[in-house]
């Protein structure tokens, strides 16, 4: 997973403001968390920055993939105990009469669900670790005794 500094080093570093951000560093942060797209930096698409732009496109492709599979389940270690499903604060809020009470989760697209005996990632966009107002939530991982769950940044 690239850092903001690694992204910044490949940007024009002119602080021109055309992307709507005051500084290129600020743009680098917002690229990483998905609030800005590479196309919003006009100078980057001039021939002068072609090499840097290609490198940035590769780096951000990794970030995109991480966002899709940001939570990794090692199925060989999962017993399907559902501790993660039931303890997830988002599930508790959105499915109070099923998942929160320990029953099979009923909400349409939960973050996690037990399918065929192991936990599957269904809809990570609801997870508190991702998105604009993200928090460092580790509840699912902490309640898995076999360490079947890990987060991409650590993998």
């Amino acid at each position, binding site marked *: 997973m690239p850092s903001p500094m690694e992204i910044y080093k490949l940007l024009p570093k002119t602080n021109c403001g055309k992307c709507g951000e005051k500084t290129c560093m600020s743009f680098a942060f917002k690229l990483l968390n998905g609030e800005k797209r590479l196309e919003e930096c006009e100078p980057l698409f001039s021939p002068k920055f072609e090499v840097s732009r290609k490198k940035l496109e590769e780096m951000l492709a990794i970030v995109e993939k991480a966002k899709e599979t940001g939570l990794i389940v090692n199925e*060989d*270690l999962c*017993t399907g105990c559902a501790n993660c499903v039931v303890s997830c604060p988002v599930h508790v809020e959105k499915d109070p009469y099923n998942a929160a009470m320990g029953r099979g989760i009923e909400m349409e697209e939960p973050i996690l669900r037990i399918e065929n005996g192991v936990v599957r990632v269904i809809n990570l966009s609801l997870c508190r670790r991702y998105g604009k107002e993200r928090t460092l939530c580790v509840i699912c991982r902490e309640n898995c005794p*076999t360490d079947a769950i890990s987060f991409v940044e650590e993998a």
Partner: protein
Amino acid sequence: MFEFTKLMKFDVRVVVAEDILHEGDKAKALCSRELAEKLGVRNGDSIRLTRGDVSVCFEAEVSEFAEGVDIVIPSGYFAARLAGLENPKRFEAEVEKCDGADSI
């Protein structure tokens, strides 16, 4: 690892417990870190457990879940070979390295 560990035999405490992830057609056993270091065993190595006149070879996995005892074997066919009526869940056995784990 020193080769002479192949000649070592130790008395060990064995616990039989349900283990969904490790029970199957191939004999597997969880080994504590302490025993693994003593015996010179790594993940995938084979160990022979002998109790009385019965021996079974297991594929060892060094595991935190064997901490507190020496060996944990999943309840199932291979545990049933070794266990006796006096206490089918906890017993003592002799352990040594061997080649290849038993399978059904």
